[in-house]
């Protein structure tokens, strides 16, 4: 596994101090191969989301290091970290993923704006991305007018706005019925085939079974596969 797009070395994360000290991660060594479809699986409260936040550059570790596409995140400023998120990682979350006051297209345009894409080029790119997730006819719908599965597909399209190499998702199908889950998974597998590294945090063993690379987290550590 020499070509790792994300790598962690003895990664630890602690919350609180003294009697309230919680050690969410206890020395995680992890390598996620470029272009893989990786599932991070484990019971609730065992550190999956913490791991996701750290490898996505949303949070900083208490110890150890995170290297995203060759960059040590601990050496980055807040601004540098934000720039890294904008260029390398596309996030999808379980709930309330979209900005409710904006249409599907506008949600994607916002991500494009943050990435510095000029306004004139935003709309065509947004439509292109909606087409990619099979929702071009919903461009002008607000999140409230979309089903859960459709909302999640818009979120995926938005995560792809800046063409990041990595898609990082926290329980993206956790709130969906089976049909919607199948829709979303199909989109993700298609994207993976096109070369995106897909990392999916879940506690569904069915979804995990479809992953090429499986990482089990238990008690803040990686379990041997």
């Amino acid at each position, binding site marked *: 596994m020499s070509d790792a797009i994300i790598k962690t070395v003895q990664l630890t994360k602690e919350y609180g101090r003294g009697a309230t000290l919680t050690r969410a991660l206890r020395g995680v060594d992890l390598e996620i191969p470029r272009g893989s479809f990786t599932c991070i699986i484990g019971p609730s409260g065992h550190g999956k989301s913490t791991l996701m936040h750290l490898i*996505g550059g949303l949070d900083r570790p208490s110890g150890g290091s995170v290297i995203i596409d060759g960059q040590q995140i601990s050496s980055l400023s807040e601004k540098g970290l934000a720039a890294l998120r904008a260029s390398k990682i596309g996030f999808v979350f379980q709930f*309330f993923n979209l900005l409710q006051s904006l249409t599907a297209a506008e949600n994607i345009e916002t991500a494009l704006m943050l*990435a510095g894409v000029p306004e004139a080029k*935003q709309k065509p790119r947004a439509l292109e991305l909606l087409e990619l997730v099979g929702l071009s006819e919903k461009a002008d719908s607000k999140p409230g007018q979309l089903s859960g599965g459709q909302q999640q597909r818009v979120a995926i399209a*938005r995560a792809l706005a800046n063409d990041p190499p990595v898609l990082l998702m926290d329980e993206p199908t956790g709130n969906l019925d089976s049909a919607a889950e199948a829709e979303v998974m199909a989109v993700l597998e298609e994207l993976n085939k096109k070369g995106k590294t897909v990392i999916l945090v879940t506690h569904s063993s069915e979804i995990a079974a479809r992953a090429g690379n499986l990482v089990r987290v238990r008690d803040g550590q990686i379990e041997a596969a």
Partner: protein
Amino acid sequence: MTLGKLVFKNLTRRRGRFVFTLLGIIIGMGSFVAFMSLGGSLKSQIERESAALGANLVVTPKGSCAYEQVAILTGEQLPTTITAEEVAAIRSIPGMRAIPYLAERSAIENRPVSVMGILPAETKEIKGWKLSAGSYFPTETTEGAVLGAVLAEQFALAPGSEVRIRGEMIPVLGVLSETGGKDDLTVFLAMPLAQRLYKQKNTVSYVAVRVDRIDEVDLYALKIKEKVSLGVVSDKQMLGSVLSIVGTVNVTLQLIAAVAILAAAFGIVNTMMTATYERKREIGILQAMGAPRSTIFRLFLLESAIYGLLGGIGGAVLGFAASIVAAPYISQNAATSFVKGSQASIDPVMLIGAVLFSTLVAMVSGLYPAWKASKLSPVEAISYE
């Protein structure tokens, strides 16, 4: 999408809150603009009246206070204690012209108006009056009235009609051209008629004095005091004391307006803090999308600024409208009677100033909420449900 569009969408998503917060600023700024505009026109009117009086010195009853000096400039009723002998003594001093006035009040259609007894020929000359209709007093004792332009228009009076003063119908002789001052709202009578109607036996309210040599104005003041036992003030002293009273009134009004603006500013803080809490998760999503803290800060600060900008525009419009509507009503009060509806005008510098000021206040109000929003950690924001 641009930051501006995103800000606008955020502002209008909670329309009720947007409108109520905006109303707070509009009312605060409106009262500020209204008070400023009224106060501003008050000051300029006083300066104009002082110039229109055409006097370097004013002789008043002994012991008259600043209020009476205000009354001279506003045309209010004054104690009438200066006798004909005293007037004659003043008028006998060489090197200056002294013109007596009898300032009284009457009412036309239940609205108070100033009535002024004058020496027709001399007053006309010193004030430089022109007639817009009819004729002027042909003699010093003609029993008729000459009206100020605004008053004639307000009560639809013209040469040939009559005006009731103290129960007596007085024929209107003529109407003056507009002067822009209180003379526009005054009924002028020849001194003997005015004294008869108001039962003043040869007494007058004050004497306006114009000296030939302005550098010797203090000397003339002394000369007058030697001849008669009356109060003498220079136009500058009078203007100074009147302006200081008006200044106090203005400052008080502006302080009240400042409280209104302060309340509106806290309204913005409140609204923006609520928005920060409500949109915590959205802030997290924006951060995950790569928005740096500076962008989150700008997003919230711009929202506040737009409240200030729109509130400032609304407040300026409301304030000017209020000052125009309110001016005729409050002009019936002595201290504010300079403010005339016909004088209310829109000052573009003040309008722009009000909008800028409002935007600045709103941005300062938005600093803390914007800072709070930008300081949220992405994980904390995203985990918020």
